[in-house]
C-alpha cells in the first residue's frame, strides 16, 4: 500500500478492519524500526515505505537460505546420478 504512495494514518487504517489505535501502534513500531518514514505535511503526517530498510530485512537471511538451497540442489543431483548408476 505505502510502497506506491505516501498515506496518512487514517487512510491506512481505513483499509483494515482493525481498530484505529491498533493500526497507529503498528505504524509507530514500523516507524521506530525505520521500515516506515514519516513526513509532516501541514497538519497531516504521511507515511511512506523505507525501501532500503525493507530490502535489508529481507536480504539478511537470504545468503543463509541460498547456502542451504545450493546444498540441497547438489544433494538432489548427486542422488539422481546415483539412482541411474544402480
Amino acid at each position: 500500500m505505502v510502497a506506491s504512495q505516501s498515506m496518512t494514518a487514517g487512510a491506512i487504517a481505513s483499509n483494515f478492519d482493525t481498530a484505529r489505535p491498533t493500526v497507529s501502534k503498528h505504524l509507530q513500531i514500523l516507524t521506530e524500526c525505520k521500515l516506515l518514514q514519516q513526513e509532516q505535511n501541514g497538519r497531516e503526517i504521511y507515511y511512506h515505505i523505507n525501501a532500503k530498510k525493507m530490502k535489508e530485512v529481507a536480504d539478511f537471511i537470504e545468503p543463509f537460505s541460498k547456502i542451504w538451497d545450493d546444498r540441497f540442489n547438489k544433494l538432489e543431483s548427486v542422488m539422481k546420478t546415483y539412482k541411474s548408476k544402480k
Partner: protein
Amino acid sequence: MELKTKILAEDNKQEIVITREFDLPVELLFTAYIEPEIVEQWMGTKVLKLDCKKHGSYQFVTTDPKGNQHGFNGTIHEFVPNQKITRTFEMENTPFPVQLEYLAFEKITDNTSKLTMHIIYKSITDRDNMLKLPFAQGINMAHNRLQDIFNKLK
C-alpha cells in the same frame, strides 16, 4: 527466483525450521545422509566418521579455499531409517555453541519426498548470529575483494 528451500525463522525464538521438497524417493533422500561418500559429494566435506545409529556419532572436516581446515562433529540420538535422525551439530574452534537438530524425512509420492530440519540453538542471540554468518561472510568477501582491487591500483 524463488528458492525451493524454505527457512522459517520467527523473531525472538531460538529455533529455525528448514523445509525442502525433493524430486527423489524418500529412501534415496535418506541414503544421502548415511553413505559417507555421498555425504562428501553434496556437503563438499571430508567424512572422518559417520556411525549412523542411536548413540552413534559423526565427524567431518572441510577445507576452505584458503586451505584452512574446519571441523564439525556431533552425536546421533535417534536414528530411524527413512524417517528421522536426531543429532547434535558442533562447529569446532568457533564461539558457536552446540545445536540440536531434528531431521524428519517424509514420503510425498513414490518419487518425491520432504525434509524438515528443526534446529534449536542455545539462545536467541546464538541463532541470530548463525543466521547472519553467511551474510557477514558475504560482506567480508566483498571487502576483501575491494581491498585486493585497491592493492592492485596502488
